[in-house]
């Protein structure tokens, strides 16, 4: 038993799991307030990472200084821009479709995802080719045997977990969070209590999308390579993670995200077949879990969603 190797697999899995969990939390937030599945969420993430990349190019072109300063500006701008995009999508597509069959929303957001993805491929300069996302965090690392702990990964992991905790605190402890929870439990009563329903929906979509942008920046920093297509699989995985954890439950989304990463790692490292089948394995296990427990691992509490 090589502990260095196991530790390395765990570290890799945690980073992937964090990115999946951040995407899954978005899915769960949207489902919580409106009972809808927004399938363009993965491609919103891609827009986030490309906004960050463009901002980085702009700042370096302007000759702006320190990588960490650049990173903070890049991340904040990307999150703000994508929050606006998320709220815009809610205003233009989601709210007007309220009351329509859920299948319509699913289809429309699926198509929106294609539009978002293809628009990068076609209109972003050289958008069809992979881009080299810069390493903006110091690349210090320590090695023990087969285990290499990277400083940048540790920072990303901690800040990602912090981000999820902040969202959770926002929902549980603030007035805004109370409004979101009220809307998610009973829209009519919430309206009667004087809560601005539309505003709550916009804010929730902005919040989920900003998280996706954050996940996108983490993705770029982790892999140092981005392309127009990254959102497709991330969206599918984020959705599955939210489903397997239990829609409408933030803890479920987190559990689902890390579980999916764990399954992929096992699929690639521990099972005897070619690692090309690791996604097949991970999705296969998800199918089995969903068949056994259709409401997801942590289930959906009827009384308290989100």
């Amino acid at each position, binding site marked *: 038993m*090589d502990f*260095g*190797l196991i530790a*390395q*697999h765990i570290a*890799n899995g945690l*980073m*992937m799991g964090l990115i999946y969990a951040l995407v899954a939390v978005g899915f769960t937030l949207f489902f919580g307030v409106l009972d809808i599945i927004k399938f363009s969420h993965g491609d919103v993430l891609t827009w986030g990472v490309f906004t960050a990349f463009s901002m980085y190019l702009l700042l370096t072109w302007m000759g702006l200084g320190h990588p960490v300063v650049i990173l903070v500006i890049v991340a904040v701008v990307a999150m703000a821009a994508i929050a606006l995009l998320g709220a815009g999508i809610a205003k233009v597509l989601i709210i007007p479709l309220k009351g329509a069959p859920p299948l319509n929303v699913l289809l429309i957001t699926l198509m929106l995802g294609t539009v978002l993805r293809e628009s990068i*491929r076609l209109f972003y300069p050289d958008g*069809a*080719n*992979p*881009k*080299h996302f810069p390493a903006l965090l110091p690349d210090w*690392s320590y*090695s023990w045997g*087969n285990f*290499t702990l*990277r400083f940048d990964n540790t920072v990303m992991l901690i800040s990602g977990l912090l981000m999820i905790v902040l969202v959770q605190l926002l929902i549980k402890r603030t007035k805004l969070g109370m409004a979101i929870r009220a809307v998610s439990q009973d829209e009519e009563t919430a309206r009667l209590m004087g809560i601005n329903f539309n505003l709550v929906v916009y804010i929730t979509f902005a919040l989920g999308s900003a998280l996706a942008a954050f996940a996108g920046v983490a993705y770029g920093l*982790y*892999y*140092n*390579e981005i*392309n127009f*297509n*990254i959102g497709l*699989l991330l969206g599918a995985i984020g959705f599955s993670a939210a489903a397997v954890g239990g829609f409408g439950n933030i803890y479920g989304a987190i559990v689902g995200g890390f579980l999916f990463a764990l399954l*992929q*790692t096992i*699929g*690639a*490292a521990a099972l005897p077949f*070619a*690692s*090309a089948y*690791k*996604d097949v394995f991970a999705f296969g296990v998800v199918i089995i879990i969903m068949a056994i427990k259709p409401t997801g691992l942590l289930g959906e509490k009827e009384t308290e969603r989100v």
Partner: protein
Amino acid sequence: MKSSKILCLVLGLMMALAATPALAKDTVQVAFIGPLTGGVSAIGVGGRNSADLAVRLRNADPKAKYKYELVVLDDECKPNAGVQVATKAAADKKIIAAATQYCSVVALAAVDVYHRFGLPVIVWGAVHPGITYGNTYKEVHRINGTMINQNEVAAKFVTGLGYKTWVLLYDTTDYGKGMYEYFSKYLKQNGGKVLGSFGVNADQQDFTAELTQAKKLNPDVIWFGGLTPLGVRIRLQMDKLGIKSQFQSCSGIISDAFITGAGELAEGTIAFREGEPVEDLPGGKWFLKEYEKAGYKEAPDAFGPFAFAAMNMILDGIEAAGPNRKAVVKWLSNIKDYKTIVGQVTFDDHGQNISPAITKYVVQDGKWVPWKSSEYASGKRKLKNR
């Protein structure tokens, strides 16, 4: 008076009609098919420009019998899209011949279409042996060599450098699997030892699990069989995990996009490709000069000269045999010691060019440099683990 006017008019018209063929040449359509979008589009666009250059130069030649029109189609490096555009080109009777495909997976799927519709094609970049040797289609030819030649040379070369152990990663498309099959076969023949091998998905993003396993095996070399986007990801993620092995790949990553994508980490990567470096060929410098003169925005990239040579040969065929598919197929089947800018071409009975030289490349200062003229060969720089 009236009748003489009519006579004049008729005579005038007859003269005009008689003069027309001498003034305007018949237009003949030829096609180029390659990946113009997607991860390997840099190569496809370079190929398209090069094929376009061949057409432009021919149209500027007063001795040419026909005026040529290039139809450009994007196969996206995807078999389904490739079969669609191949059918579009092959079903269009106005198109006489085509220079087709960089991606082996697409070419393997499309050759049946070319055969069914009788469209003569010359493959300009795809290297899977099955494209020519997997069938007896007389319409299908290939100007570049196959991955068999490439891997034979590659295995001999790297074992000759003194490397002993390998971990092999390959994408599970026909292209990646073919590369893996031939490279591991020749590697074993030359005494190389494979410590582990991983088949990966062609659009996989995360390789940390596979590379963590590879790191534990601690090979001298990590070899990758596949195309540029995955090559970039694997090289970057090797560094993330602190892997110090030498990185080796195949013709699939010899593109400018690999160097832009991998940045400084591309330095010292070795790979192999069919054909001599274009600069070293008699027509190479001339090609590069003409390409520059034509003012294309994008570089010809690694396979541009092959696309140029393939298209030029098609145009020669149409000039010689006439704008007729069957006649062009017949003309191509007799090609022997034919001079092109990528060297002499002789097609065997499967339409395969049997005289492909293989060039060894290494990335030096952000460029693919032929090994023999690199500082790595002269001993000024050292590859990893050497």
